[in-house]
């Protein structure tokens, strides 16, 4: 079974907010709503009583985690929130009655009521793009090449990010630009299993992963 997800190498993220802006621009996210947000975690002391420069800080991109066992899907009375075969959690707006129980049941607060359409919305993992083999906007536009998209079942080392196109060779077309990719294992620094984290898991089993070396991962899993 496929479970599409995003892996973020937190050590590569510079907090440029390009992912957040790209998401807003591509998906027409209403003012005040954020399908993808970049939080700064820290500066926190590295150990008890530590003073600067012994502090650490990182940026954390948060959006719908397209959980394996999503609570939002369980509580939806009309199955407007549902899970697709590619593992993503989607909302059928025509079925949404706007009860917002999905908003309450989401541990990460990443669902928003669209005040104009009066339905709940959230990150779709750019389903309109990934279903055509493209990358989600937040991955495609990542300024630090810190975000990688792929199928969790295939291992995060095979997740992909866009890569430089050498226009001096071959075909410098749009298609080549869009399809030129690099795998996570070929670009990120070494990491161990205990450096791969997820957001707080309360039984929903979030699919997204965060690679954090050097820094101390804040928050339970």
């Amino acid at each position, binding site marked *: 079974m496929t479970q599409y997800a995003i892996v973020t190498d937190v050590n590569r993220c510079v*907090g440029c*907010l390009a992912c*957040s802006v790209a998401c807003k621009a591509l998906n027409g996210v209403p003012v005040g709503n*954020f399908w993808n*947000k*970049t*939080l*700064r*975690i*820290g*500066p*926190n002391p590295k150990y008890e009583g530590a003073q600067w420069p012994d502090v650490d800080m990182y940026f954390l991109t*948060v959006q719908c985690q397209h959980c394996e066992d999503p*609570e939002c899907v*369980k*509580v*939806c*009375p*009309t*199955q*407007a929130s549902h899970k697709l075969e590619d593992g993503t959690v989607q909302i059928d707006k*025509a*079925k*949404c*009655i*706007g*009860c*917002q*129980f999905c908003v*309450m*049941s*989401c*541990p*990460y*607060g*990443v669902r928003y*009521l669209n005040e104009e359409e*009066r*339905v709940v919305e959230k990150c779709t993992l750019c389903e309109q793009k990934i279903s055509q083999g493209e990358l989600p906007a937040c991955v495609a536009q990542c300024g630090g090449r810190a975000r990688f998209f792929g199928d969790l079942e295939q291992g995060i080392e095979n997740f992909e990010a866009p890569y430089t196109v050498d226009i001096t060779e071959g075909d410098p077309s749009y298609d080549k630009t869009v399809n030129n990719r690099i795998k996570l294992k070929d670009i990120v620094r070494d990491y161990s299993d205990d450096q791969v984290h997820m*957001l*707080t898991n*309360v*039984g*929903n089993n979030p699919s997204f992963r965060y690679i954090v070396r050097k820094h101390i991962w*804040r*928050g*339970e899993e």
Partner: protein
Amino acid sequence: MELQWPLILFTTFVAASCGLFAAQGVYALKGEAKEAQMPALWTSFVLLVVGGIAVFFHLQHWERIFNGFGHITSGITQELIAIVVLVVVMIVCFAQLRRESEMTKGVAWCAIVFSAVLVIVAGHSYMMPSRPTWDSFFGPLSLLGAAAAFGPGLFAAIASAKGAELGDALTGKVALVGTAANAVLTCCYVAVMAVAGGSFTQVGYSFDPTHPNKALQDAAAYGPFAGGAAWSTTIAIVAALAALAVAIVARKKGNWKVMGAAIAVLAFAGAIALRVTFYLTGGSVFMYY
């Protein structure tokens, strides 16, 4: 999270309706206060309708309610099923009261059981792992406590107003047990909420560039006695204890018309206040977004 008044009113009115209908069932089993059966049935039905109307104000697209409605794992679907079952029991009860002026024991038991089931189901809908203060069975139990206090109080008041003879032993006992259960369960749920504060994810200092003026998230702010919720928690506890005190006094002195109404008002106010605390303490486990 923000107060969801339609949901607060819905759950409280459902508890009130079920409490009254169940109390009616208890009196029917004992064969007392038959004159109050029909007015009590109408009152509980009206309370249920008011709750139902209130909840529609929460729905953004109520006209789509049957657009695929029926996902059984959803608390809303379960509530609807429980409401339909209870309304059927009410209709059967209505038919029996019209025909024979009393309901059968089977229907009386159904009134008690299905009322309790609806209250539990309505409370259970909010048990979500994402919200530490909500994810406790004391949530639905506290709602059941409110029903247990409200129902006997209002039934006694209606019966007195209708001139029915109330056996002080039964009325006093039911009111005392109901209000005592409400007081205990209210206090227990508040204690559970206070302890649940330790389940929030803490990340130390954080900053959200889209809300630069937002204060740091603090799990302590989601406590039932923290600044925002202290007033409603206090009202909930005081009202529950006051209802118990009134039941104790009424058991000795009677005057159920006034005392019963006072118990019902206090139980209702306490339930509303506890639901306000419920929302004010209802932060998500990862509260930084």
